[in-house]
Structures are given as structure tokens and as C-alpha cells.
């Protein structure tokens, strides 16, 4: 399984990164049901806004192909689970946990993400483990 401890999409910034939230973009820049990629201290983070306004952050690296493309996948639901499908070979991942629904042995690292209540900006934090 992934080494990420906090799987919730929003929450307090973990201590491993000194509690630092990194700004990504404004919430309105995100197209519903589509992703973008943020480069945060050399780590590629795929950021998604779903139809219901939820935010998710996962590693942009597709473990099946080795290419950084997860942010360009199609969003959807599978049995109610919010998902993203890798654009490369179409494996589907759970946006909440990063677990691959087609091969549960595989999972994408996930990142804490939030919408700053004061500025409306979307922010992502790196955990110690994600930073490698």
C-alpha cells in the first residue's frame, strides 16, 4: 500500500513538511471534472476538481507507464467511487485513496489538498514520504 498516512483530501497539513501549504492556482481556474498538474518542489502533483466541487491531489506519475500523465485522465465514478482513468493504458484509480481499482496492489500516493478559506486558492501539502 501507499505510505501516505493521511488519505483525506482535506485536512491539517502534515508535520513532515513543516506544516506548509503550497499554493497551486485559484479554485476557479480548475475546470470541473478535469485535472491540472502542479510542480511542487520538484514533485508533480495531479490536482482534480470533481463535479461536486471536491478537490483531490495525487501523484502525477502513472505507475503503469512511467509517464507523468495522471492529471490528464478522464474523471468519473465507479460504483459511486470518484475516479480518474490514466490516459495511457486506462487503469482507473480511486481519487480518495489512490488505490487502483483494476489492480488493488497498486496505488498512487495522495496529498493533502484544501481550498484556503481566506483567499480561495487551492493549496497542496507534501508529506515527508511523498518528497522521498
Amino acid at each position, binding site marked *: 500500500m501507499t505510505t501516505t498516512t493521511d488519505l483525506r483530501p482535506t485536512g491539517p497539513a502534515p508535520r513532515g513538511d513543516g506544516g506548509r501549504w503550497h499554493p497551486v492556482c485559484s479554485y476557479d481556474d480548475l475546470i470541473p471534472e478535469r485535472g491540472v498538474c502542479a*510542480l511542487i518542489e520538484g514533485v*508533480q502533483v495531479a490536482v482534480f476538481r470533481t463535479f461536486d466541487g471536491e478537490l483531490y491531489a495525487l501523484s502525477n506519475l502513472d505507475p503503469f507507464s*512511467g*509517464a*507523468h500523465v495522471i492529471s490528464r485522465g*478522464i474523471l*468519473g*465514478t465507479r460504483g459511486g467511487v470518484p475516479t480518474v*482513468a490514466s490516459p495511457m493504458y486506462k487503469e482507473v484509480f480511486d481519487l480518495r485513496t489512490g488505490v487502483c481499482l483494476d489492480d488493488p496492489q497498486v496505488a498512487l500516493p495522495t496529498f493533502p489538498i484544501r481550498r484556503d478559506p481566506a483567499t480561495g486558492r487551492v493549496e497542496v501539502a507534501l508529506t515527508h514520504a511523498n518528497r522521498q
Partner: protein
Amino acid sequence: MRLVVVGHGPTGHRLVEALRERDEAGAWQVTVIGEEPRPAYDRVALTSYLTEDADLAYPAHDEGVTLLTGDPVAAIDRKRRTVRTASGREVGYDALVLATGSAPFVPPVQGRDLPGVFVYRTIDDLDAIRTHCRDLTASRPGAGGVVIGGGLLGLEAARALQGLGVDTHVVEVAPWLMPRQLDEGGGVMLRRHIEALGMTVHAGTPVAGLEAGDDGRVARVGLGDGASVDAGVVVFSAGIRPRDELARGCGLPVGERGGVAVDDTCRTEDPAIFAVGECALVNGQVYGLVAPCFSMAEVVADQLLAAATGQDSPARFEGADMSTKLKLMGVDVASFGDPFAGPDQGALDVTYTDPVGGVYKKLVVSDDARTLIGGVLVGDASAYPTLRAYVGAELPGSPEQALFGGTEAVGGDLPGATQICNCNNVTADTIRCAIREQGLTELGEVKSCTRAGATCGSCVPLVKKILDAELTAAGIEVSKALCEHFDYSRAELFDIVRVRRITTFTELISEHGRGRGCDICKPVVASILASLGSGHILDGEQAALQDTNDHFLANLQKNGTYSVVPRIPGGEITPDKLIVIGEVARDFGLYTKITGGQRIDLFGARVEQLPRIWKRLVDAGFESGHAYGKALRTVKSCVGSTWCRYGVQDSVGMAIKLELRYRGLRAPHKLKAAVSGCSRECAEAQGKDFGVIATDKGWNLYVCGNGGMRPRHADLLATDLDDEGLVRLIDRFLMFYIRTADRLQRTASWLESLDGGLDYLREVIIEDRLGICAELEEAMERHVGSYSDEWRDTLEDPDKLSRFVSFVNAPDVPDPSIVFEPEREQIKPVLVTGPRLEVASR
């Protein structure tokens, strides 16, 4: 043990195939000796050899079979058990099968040996007819041709003659056409159809004699009623006579009117000698249709296998269903059961005649109107497969319902012993067993396992119904549902979107689906919306439906970069434009490669480079090539008549015209096309979704070909079209495909899945049976009228352009994970990280 088969026609071929398939021990060493210079071919489809240049060859036997062609057997020595061929070869046998077929019957009229007089039986006959007609139409334009015999084969021959450009007459001695299969009402209706196609029918009159012209060739046919017809070519098709001369020569009994006499195991008086097919007289009858001949072949194969182990086989030839269905130049004709039974046999008729629509239907039923005895269908034979299956059984409803409802709501409950496939002798039970025991779920599997529907194909709709009923009964959902979000197939969704004028995915899924969609249904709906012309594919909510290729209007490659393909219509490009492509590739460091579709692919672009690359290309006059879309890709062409010594039409001009017409057209899958300027076919049009081949008179249109994983030779849809007719037919074809195909279904498999196949396609888009052709053409006109270059529009829209960044928080930073190394003086991608599946397994 040595088996010798004399004759390599369809029946001989079937016998050998059946024997080899079941002779696991290899008990029989098989030698086949044929008269014709070539191995067996599909004689049933003979006419298509002329009209469509079809390849009729049957699959070759395995290497355990010795085949001698072009050397007929001349004599049988029953004492020594040997046969001797014309060339003097001697072959010994333990069992001998005569499969010598029949010869056309030519009545003893004067002039029957004149040059220009033919029979219609072998490929050699057809080659000779073709050569003669070419010469005739060139030297005597407008010359007529006469087919003597208005039966099944005679009408086939007439169709062939007409296809060769000859003004064709059909002479039939009986008062109506196809007297052996049709009653008077059916024959009269058929005549109207045949005459509407431009042929002249002379019924109820014999031929009096043939006269030669000054050149010594046939020039005139005199009829029994005193009339005469100018004819530069005459084809006799007045019945067949069994080829029983070998049997006569070795003292075996033959029938009064010919035919090698055999019992119901197809054995002659000599237990070592069998006869099968058209040369056999079994139960006092000679059979001229392929289905009973194949049944005989199967019986003899069983007998031989049993004999090899010293056992008796129960296999018997038990008569045959003489039902027939054929299509003559678009006219359906079918006859089944006993269509001639009358009140004397306790039978009643129910008939229906529609002179305007050209439809005649007759059902013969028992006097309580419940049991089906036989019938005739002309003009509309859609009910044939079901009705034929019900012969001898009680109809599920009234005869009227059967006449009009035909194929509805039956299939699952057909009696088990009902013969579904006549050609291959397959019952409903056999099909059901195969489905259950072998777990078959696809029509193609059922066809290859049971052979049902594998010969003439007329029973395929019924086989499909049985399959669906079995799967449903087994709890296997015959689901056409696209995915968990929609219970509809792509074709159904297309209709919903079209009819209800739905323009957004949200509207569609909230009213007709559930959940929020996925990577299956979203691109399908995106494609449907695009096919129906709902603006730019990146407008509004549509942007979120597109897969990454459509989203970035480029093709994703293995390292996360994209490739760029500008449109080069017909593969024609100016030197200046070539230079621009070269300069762009050089300036952006792209890898270049020539594609199979006659254009140039530029690889290795990062998303943020795409708008800058396209700015340069659009400024130089290029537009999107839609290589990224499920859309028309290219219309490939050869150089055509402008330069080529052999070209007969301007293939490049036509290819450009077609490519510009259909550019940007979104479809269930990609579409490839080609135009060849002559029959040498350098553009490989017969391997394309639609392919056009130039003729002296215009264009031949081929459809539903495919290269790739499952190559499929395209089918000839129409011949000698003018430019306008060609475009109109392609318009209809493409729009009908777009409306009705499944998700990611190429035209080739779409055609295979269409009930009724190519005939049905012709009915819909040529004969307009569904009355939708005008609508299809309008839809295409809308597409053509609303086309706009996706890349130009994107470059003009800052909102869309803003999405072309690798990193939303660092728009100017190139993706550091994209790395190249040199290879053969160009770049090649290097995956820095490689697949990292270990991330999770630890």
C-alpha cells in the same frame, strides 16, 4: 485405405473436408481427381466472380490430401479397383466416390454450336463470356444478349450479362419465371421486377433456333412464337443433366433420365462406389441445390469413417428441403417447403399482393390454417428464415401475422428439430447445445463451431435470435449497455441525443443515465455531440469529456509528450509547405516520420509547445489533421491520371475533394479512406473504411475494409458512379455508420454485425428502404457547412489556450521528466522513472 474422389466441385470439396475433419486416426488416404484446371470453388456465388471480381476459391485441403486437377477420370475398372485419367494416370482405390456434378442441358436447337453461344457453369465459362461480351460491346455497341432459361441460374446469368453492358433478354418456356420455385403470382411479380431493371422477359415460349450473322457468330435468336431477338451473345441455362458417363461406362445402373442410381447411403450397386451431389440419383431424384448435395457428402463421410473400422453407420440421406432464397439485383425471392400444395392435398393459400411495392407473398397452410406447408416471397423475403424454420410446424399466430410479422418474437421457442441452416444441415438443438456446452457468446463463434449461417448466410438472423435467447436463459445478460452509467448502446444514445436535441453530457446523464460518467461513456458522448455538430469540442462542459488526445488536439505518446499531424489532403503537398513542416520540426526539435496515410507526423512536443507549433503551421496554411480524433484521418491516393500512364481518373483530385468534405467528422472510431486511379489499386482502397477505385465510366465504391489487426477486404457497394453519385453514397454510408455503430466499432466489424449484412446496407443506403437517406444527406451537409479548423479556433481563444501548460503553477517550466536521447540523427524518448509498480507492492 485408399479413397478416390472423382470431381472437385463444392460437393467433392465438402466430402473431403468432412472426412478429414472427423478421420482422426487418418484411416483414409485421400486422392481427389478433378476435371477443371483449378481446385473447387464456390459455384453458388459464380455470378459475383463477374460482377464483383470475387475470389470464389474454397479453403485448400490439408496436406494429407492429394489433389490432381485438369485431368479428368476417363474410366473405372471395378474389378481391379482402379481409375484411369485422361492423361493415362492410374490410381487404385478401396472406396470410390463419384462427385462429377452435372452438365448444362443445351436443347437440340439449330445454331447451338455457333461462336458466341455459351453455358453458365464454370469459371472458364464465365471468363469466355466476359471476353466475348467485351469484344461485343466494343465492336457492336448496343448489341443484345439472350439467356435461354428463366430459372434460378438463368436469372443469375442474365444479371451477369447485364452487368457486362449487354441489353439482356430472358426466354423461358414455362408461362412464368422460376417455375420450379415460384407459383404464378410470384413469377409474375418477379417478372415486373426484372423488367423494371431494364431486361426483357419472353415467357411461355421455347427457342426455335439460333442464326449466325455475316461474321459467322450468333446474331439472332428465333422464338417459338415467331418473334426474333437480336443477340450477339447467347447463354443456355435450361437445366442440368447429371454427369453419369463414368458410371455408365463401368456398368453401374443409372436412372432413366440420367443420374447414378444410389441408395439412401449414397452407395451404388457396387458397395465400394458411392455417388454424391448433382450426379447422383437418390430416392429417384436428382438434386441441383447445394444444401442436399452437402447433406449427401456428409452421409458418405460418415459411411466411410464407419467402414474404416468395420462398422455400420446409421447416416442416411433423407430427402431435402428445397427451400431457396436469393437476391437478384436487389429483388428478394424465396420459396420454401411445398409452395404448390393445393386443396387436393388439404392445403389453403393465404396471399398478399402489393403491385406498387412489388411485393408478393403466399403462405400455404394446412386446412385448419395452423400448420405451415410452404410459401413464396417476392420483393420482401425478410420473413424467410423464420417461415422456413416453421415448415411442418404449427405457426405461433395466424397466417396473416406470419406473413407480416415474420421474424418477430420467435427464435427462442423454435422446435429443437427445426432445421435452421439448410446449407449445413444444422438444427436449432445443435445450435443450442453448442452454445451451452462450449459457452459461446458471440455470433461469429456460433457460426464457426456449428457452421450454421456459414454458407449462404440467410439464416444468420435466426441464429442470432437463438443465441440471444440462450444467453438470456442462461442469465448471461445480452447487455448492450455502454457502461454502468448508461443502459443504452452507443447507437441508442445517439438517437436519444439526436431526437431530444440534447447538447450536454450533464443533461443526458441526469435524464437517461446515472452517476457521473467515466472514461468509457464520456468520450462516446463527446463524439456523439461532435458528430451532431455541437460546436468546438473544447467548448464548455464538452472539454471535460474528451480524452487527452482530443483535449490537447494531439496524440499522446509513451513518455507523456504529444505528436502533431497537419492535414495533407490526398497526400498532395507543395514544396513550400514541406519546407514549413521541416522548419517547424527542426525549430522545436521534433522527431519526424512519414505516416501510412501519406502525411507527416511530428513527435515529442510538450503540451506547452503545441500552440506555438500550431501557430506556425496554421500561419502557413495548414489545419488540424484530426490524427488525435475518432474521426476521418486521411483519404490516401495514388497519383492518378494526371501523371500516371495507366490512370483513368484523377484520383488525387477526388481524394482531396473527399478529404476536405469529411475532415473533422467525428465517428465511433477512426475512418480511413483511399482513392485509386485505376484497377491496379495502388492506393490500397480495398483495405479502407471506404475506398474508391476509378473505372472507365466513373468510380467503384468499396466499403468496410480494414487493415490492422483483423484485415478485411472491403465489399463492393456500387459501380460506375459519377462524382456526384459517389459523394452522395459516401455521405449516406458514413452517416448511417455514425448513427448505428457501437463504441469503437470500425466499419468492418459494424458491417459484420449488421443483420442482413451488405444486402441490408444496400437496401438502406441505396434503395432507401428505411426512408432515411435524405436525412442522412442533410446531416452530412450540416457537418460540411459547419466545419471549422479546431486548431485555428483554439489559437484564437485565450481561454482554451490557457490549458496548454505542463504545470498550472509554473506555466513556463518544461516538464523535467521528459528527456530524449539521440538515435539516427533524431530524438528518441527516454523514460527516466520507468514503470514503477513496486510503489505499491512493498
